[in-house]
C-alpha cells in the first residue's frame, strides 16, 4: 500500500487521473536513468507518467520532469519512491503533480512535515527570475 | 606490521557535540582514549560495534580503531587515530578543550 501526497495532504485510496480526451495513452512508469531522447509523441499522450526516485539523493527525476513539461506534457506527473518531505517544494516546482511513497516511509514523515512545504510557490527565486517584470 | 595481539577500541563522534568519543566497558561514551574499553576478541569487537551503530541518537560514524598498550598506556596505532585522540596540533587549548 502506498500513500499519495498532494498539496492538501495524504491520500491512501487516491483515484488516479481519469482518462481525458487529450491523454488517451496508458499510464507509464519511467526510471531515473530514462534518456530524454526517448521522449516521443506517444509518451506525451500518457494519462499519467510516474518517475521513480531510487534514492532521495538522486536528483535526475527533477530534470526529467522539467523536460517532459518543456516538451508539452500536460498529463499527470507523479514522483515515486524514496522521497523525503524536505523535497516536496522542489518536486512540485519541477512540474510533478504529486508524490507517492510507501506507507512505511510515510510513518517516519508525518503529514505536517509535507504540509509545511505545501506552500511551494513562496520563496521561489527561479520563478521570480522568469517573470516579465520583477 | 602484523599485530601480535588483537587490541581494538570502539570510537565515534558524539551526535550533538561532534566531539571524538570512545566506548567504555559498560557501554558508555567517554572523551579520553585512556578510559576506553580495550577489546581483545574479534567477536566482542563486532558485537560492540553493532551496539554503537544502534545508538544513532548518541553517536555518529562508529568504527574499530587499532591500539597498543605499553608503558605510555593506551595509544592509537594509526597516526590519524592518534591525532583524533590528541586534538589538532595548532590549537593551544588542547584536546577538545571546551
Amino acid at each position, binding site marked *: 500500500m502506498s500513500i499519495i501526497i498532494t498539496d492538501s495532504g495524504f491520500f491512501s485510496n487516491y483515484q488516479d487521473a481519469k482518462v481525458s480526451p487529450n491523454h488517451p495513452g496508458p499510464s507509464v512508469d519511467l526510471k531515473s536513468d530514462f534518456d*530524454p531522447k526517448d521522449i516521443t509523441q506517444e509518451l506525451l499522450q500518457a494519462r499519467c507518467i510516474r518517475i521513480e526516485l531510487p534514492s532521495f539523493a*538522486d*536528483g*535526475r527525476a*527533477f*530534470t*526529467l520532469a*522539467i523536460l517532459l513539461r*518543456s516538451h508539452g506534457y500536460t498529463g499527470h506527473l507523479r514522483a515515486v519512491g524514496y522521497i523525503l518531505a524536505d523535497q516536496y517544494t522542489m518536486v512540485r516546482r519541477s512540474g510533478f503533480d504529486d508524490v507517492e511513497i510507501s506507507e512505511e516511509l510515510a510513518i517516519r514523515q508525518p503529514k505536517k512535515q509535507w504540509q509545511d512545504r505545501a506552500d511551494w510557490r513562496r520563496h521561489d527565486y527561479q520563478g*521570480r*527570475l*522568469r*517573470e*516579465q*517584470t*520583477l | *606490521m602484523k599485530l601480535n595481539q588483537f587490541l581494538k577500541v570502539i570510537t565515534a563522534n558524539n551526535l550533538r557535540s561532534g566531539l571524538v568519543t570512545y566506548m567504555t566497558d559498560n557501554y558508555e561514551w567517554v572523551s579520553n582514549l585512556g578510559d576506553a574499553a580495550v577489546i581483545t576478541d574479534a567477536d566482542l569487537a563486532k558485537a560492540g560495534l553493532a551496539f554503537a551503530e544502534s545508538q544513532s541518537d548518541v553517536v555518529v560514524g562508529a568504527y574499530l580503531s587499532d591500539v597498543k598498550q605499553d608503558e605510555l598506556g593506551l595509544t592509537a596505532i*594509526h*597516526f*590519524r587515530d592518534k*591525532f583524533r585522540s590528541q586534538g*589538532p*596540533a*595548532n590549537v593551544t587549548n588542547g584536546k577538545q578543550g571546551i
Partner: protein
Amino acid sequence: MTTLGGAAGFEVIVGGGLGRTPMIGKTLREFLPAADLLPYVEAIVSVYNLLGRRDNKYKARIKITVHENGIEEIRARVEARYARLKTLFKGADQQLLQQIEAHFKAPEFICEKAPEFDAFKEESPGFCSWVDTNITAHKAEGYAIVSISLKKHGDTPGDATAAQMRVMSELAKKFSHDELRISHEQNVILPHVHRSDLPTVYRALRTANLATANIGLISDIIACPGMDYCALATARSIPIAQQIATRFAKLELEHDVGLLKLKISGCINACGHHHVGHIGILGLERAGVESYQITLGGDAGAEAQLGTRAGPGFGAKDIVPAIERLVLGYIELRADADETFLQSYQRLGAAPFKALLYPKEK
C-alpha cells in the same frame, strides 16, 4: 542589450578543476551575450545533472563528464537545452541585474595626490617592506588596495581571532568605505584605502599582529586544514606550513627570494591548490606514516599550468629541509635578482631543481 559595465558578454569555460584528477577547463562557448547568462548556465547544470556519473563519486565531477563525453557532445546537449530555456526568461532577470548593479556603485573616491609619507618611512622600515608586498594598485588615483596577511610566521594560515576580526572591521569602517574582501589565498583585503591613511592603517594592523609584510612571498602559504581538522585528509598540512614560514623568517631571505607561491594540500582532493603552486606540497600516507610529495612549476595565473611531481615523497621531518635546499638552490640558479622562482624553473626546466631536492641521486 545590457552590457556589464563595459563587458559585452562572457567566454564560458567548463570542466576545469583541481582535485584528484586536475584539469584545465575547455571553452564551451567563445561568446555568450550578457542577457543570456541564466538560461545558458541552467542548460549546463541541467545537462550535467543527467549525464554526470552517479556510480562512482570520484568520477562524478563535471570535469570527468566533459572528459568522458567530449566537449562537442556536451556543447550539442547544452545548446539544445539552452534553445528551449531561453524562451522562458522574459526580462525580470535583467531588471534584477540592474537593481543589483546599483548596490555595487563605486564609493566616492577623494582623488587627490597622496603624500609620499617619506618621514614615516624613515621612522618605520617595516612600513616600507609592508608597502612593497601588501599594497596593490587601485583604479582610483590616490587610493590603494591593502592585503592583510593572515600568515604571520608560525600562525595557522587563514585563521583570525575574534579580536583581529574586530580590528579589521574597524579599519574597514574608518578607512575602506566599510568594505572588506576575502582573498583566494586565505587573506583579508581592504579594497579602497586612501594612500594618506596607510601609515595609520599599518600601525593599527601591527598592534593586532596583522601587519606581516609577506603577501606573495614564501611564507604567504595556502594550506588546507589537513588532518588537524579534515575527515578526508591523509596527512597534516598546518604544522608543515608553520615550520616552513618560521624557518624562512629565521633565514631572513623571504624578500630576497621574492614572489613564490607555495601551496599545501593534505590529500589528493587538493583543497590547498598545490597543483597550481610554484611549489606544491601534497600530503599522503606511505607505509603508515605521513609523506609529502613536491610538485614544481604550477601557475594559477592566466596561463594556468599544473605542477609536475619532482620525485618520491619526503617524511614529515625531511620536507622542510628539502624546501630549504630547493629555495636556497634557486637563489644560486636564478639569472638575476628579479627572476622569480617560477621564471627560473620555466627557463631551466625541472632537472636542476630535482637535483637540489634529491642530492644523492645527482
